[in-house]
């Protein structure tokens, strides 16, 4: 066995520098022409590690003048990242982008991260950093929030447009977020809420307590009510606030702040909500099919936040997320489908389904599926396959042909949300005479 290994090493050495250079990490101290001949077996000229490169790559003069120059570039150590002869990777890199960076910057990725920035986990360091030089610190491509906006445009635009701004967010996203990965919290936060928030906002302060109606909320999750990125509501509450919260009437639902059970709702489950919303809940329960979360467990709070929300109607999150907690299979189907049904992706499940109750299966908002689809898809009114009450489905005498005779609303693995691979497969299910 040993002799085989020795033979293998000999063959590798004999294969020459090109192969060796590709496989092995780039040598940091290649012998130069000035060194003794026995220490420079490849007869490299002086500056072969990088200085020589600039003879051809003259544009680097400009880069070297920038404020932040990557150390290997500054020290003219081009072979620190590039293979001078050949490579399996673009730009003659000696390895994939992320791997090259990790040779020196491996510690940037926390070993037991609770959250990792996607470009980091994907090894796409160049999404944020210039490999050679930039005019921003840490070789960043852009400065501050402008860089983050490259991917998080909607969020950054929202921050800029918010009437009530959070000062640290205006300064820099990195005030609260780690940029590579966080071992402490999700969403790359340096600490999870409320620990992060109470670093600046003293929960025992008089103003803090007054703002929270003397409820000791220092250990509560601030982001259930407040938008840390700024909002259009006083107190940086989310844009949609439950009226009792907006009026400071916490005691309408909770025991008084001095009570030992101060955070406990006055009544459990749906009974609490009925105190104000009895007529609405009565409407829900009068229908034949009530969505189970309406009646069970935490009832309304299964889907709604009781204090504030980004969305109208106070759902705890975008409906794709809220509904997806139970209907993950449906959301997954849409994700895998080549054809996307816009309301599903946009979190508008309520466009077709009543999330509270319905008289129809699948909690649809209407009994007539053609009319429902027609709210968005008007083409069926001028040119369409015959559909409607007078058109029987040849496969099933109890069904009329409607949109769902040929499509599945949450998508399929095939084009146009069809349940079959080809149009021919679909059509010949009914038009059997054309089947080959």
């Amino acid at each position, binding site marked *: 066995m040993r002799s085989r290994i020795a033979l293998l090493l000999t063959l590798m050495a004999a294969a020459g520098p090109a192969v060796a250079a590709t496989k092995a990490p780039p040598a940091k101290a290649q012998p130069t022409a000035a060194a003794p001949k026995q220490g420079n077996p490849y007869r490299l000229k002086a500056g072969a590690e990088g200085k020589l490169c600039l003879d051809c790559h003259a544009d680097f003069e400009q880069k070297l003048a920038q404020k932040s120059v990557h150390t290997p570039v500054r020290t003219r150590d081009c072979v620190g990242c590039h293979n001078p002869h050949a490579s399996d990777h673009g730009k003659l890199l000696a390895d994939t982008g992320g791997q090259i960076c990790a040779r020196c910057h491996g510690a940037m990725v926390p070993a037991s991260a609770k959250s990792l920035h996607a470009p980091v986990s994907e090894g796409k360091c160049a999404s944020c950093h210039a490999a050679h030089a930039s005019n921003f610190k840490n070789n960043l491509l852009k400065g501050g929030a402008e860089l983050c906006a490259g991917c998080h445009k909607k969020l950054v635009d929202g921050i800029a447009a918010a009437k009530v701004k959070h000062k640290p967010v205006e300064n820099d996203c990195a005030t609260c977020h780690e940029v590579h990965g966080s071992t402490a919290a999700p969403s790359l936060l340096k600490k999870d809420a409320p620990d992060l928030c109470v670093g600046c906002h003293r929960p025992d302060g008089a103003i803090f307590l007054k703002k929270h109606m003397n409820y000791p909320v220092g250990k509560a999750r601030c982001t259930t009510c407040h938008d840390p990125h700024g909002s259009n509501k006083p107190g940086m509450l989310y844009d949609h606030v439950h009226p009792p919260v907006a009026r400071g009437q916490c005691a309408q639902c909770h025991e008084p702040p001095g009570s030992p059970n101060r955070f406990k709702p006055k009544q459990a489950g749906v009974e609490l909500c009925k105190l104000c919303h009895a007529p609405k809940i009565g409407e829900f329960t009068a*229908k*034949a*099919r009530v969505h*189970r979360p309406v*009646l*069970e*467990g935490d009832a309304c709070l299964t889907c709604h936040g009781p204090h504030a929300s980004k969305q109208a109607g106070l759902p705890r999150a975008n409906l794709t997320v809220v509904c997806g*907690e*139970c*209907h*993950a*299979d*449906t959301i997954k189907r849409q994700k*895998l*489908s*080549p054809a996307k049904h816009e309301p599903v992706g946009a979190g508008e499940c309520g466009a077709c389904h009543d999330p509270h109750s319905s008289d*129809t*299966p*699948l909690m649809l908002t209407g009994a007539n599926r053609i009319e429902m689809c027609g709210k968005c898809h008007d083409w069926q009114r001028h040119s369409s396959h015959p559909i409607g009450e007078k058109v029987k*489905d040849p*496969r*099933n*005498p*109890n*069904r009329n042909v409607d949109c769902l*005779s040929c499509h599945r609303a949450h998508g*399929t*693995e*095939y084009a146009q949300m069809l*349940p079959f*691979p080809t149009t021919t497969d679909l059509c010949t*299910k009914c038009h059997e005479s054309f089947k080959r």
Partner: protein
Amino acid sequence: MSRAIVFQSVLGLAMVFGPAVGAAQAFRHQTTVYSDPKEGQLRRPEGVACGAGGAVVVADTGNARLLLYTYRDGSLSGGTQVKLAQVPYPYRVQLDPKGEVLVLDEKLRKIVRLDAKGAFLGNVDLQGAPAGTLPGAFKVDGAGNLYVLDVLGPRVLVTDPAGKVIRQVELPREGAQFTDVAVDGGGTLYAVDAVGAGIWTADKGATAFKRLTESRKDVMSFPTYLAFHQGKLYVVDQHGGGIAILGSDGSFQGRQLALGWSPGLVYYPAQICFEPDGAVFVADRGNDRIQVFDTGR
């Protein structure tokens, strides 16, 4: 790997590994019930129950009625309509050993008892049940005892034939949504969690359920009905359009039926029941019909 393969891998793999057992229990389409004897079309039937002597009850939910049939020698006869004010939205049906019909009404959230001909006998009064009990599903055993899934508990209430609670078995409160309960001949209970696609079990005499399977999202999408038959669990995968078959130890044994509109295929199936001769009845809700399959015994 193509997108189609990725997409189908979940259920596809199950089907690949399933046929050894599945083939022996293959559901072969026998007949379909589209309407009552007077040509009144079925509409969104959610329930079907099989009982002694070939009695078959269909919950024709969308028409707010029950249909009473007799299944004998491979054919179905009767189809008497039962329409009662006490049952505006029949959802799940079962037949007890005396041939009485038990109906869970989805709108009233009550279990109603009818005689074999469909005459109203009364609501099942769950005496001794915790306040606020909300029946979401139920089963009957050979002695007429009821096993009621209280979705508010959540728990399973075991009652005597008169509805008096004699035992309650707790289900976990978090991370699951239970949609049905089943019981085997030895008194072991099973419950199905639609959200987690898992099966839970409780031995006879246990006070709480324990997990029988981890999530089986790989073989079922959104299971909503559970039947125990001849040593196997039949799980109606409503959103996945099919029936998953598990051993009593939770092992996956195969899958039957597939999503579609043609006879033999199902679209949001709701309830199944078994006849002694091997016939399987499926309430094919999305297709507005009851389908009968032969398992070839």
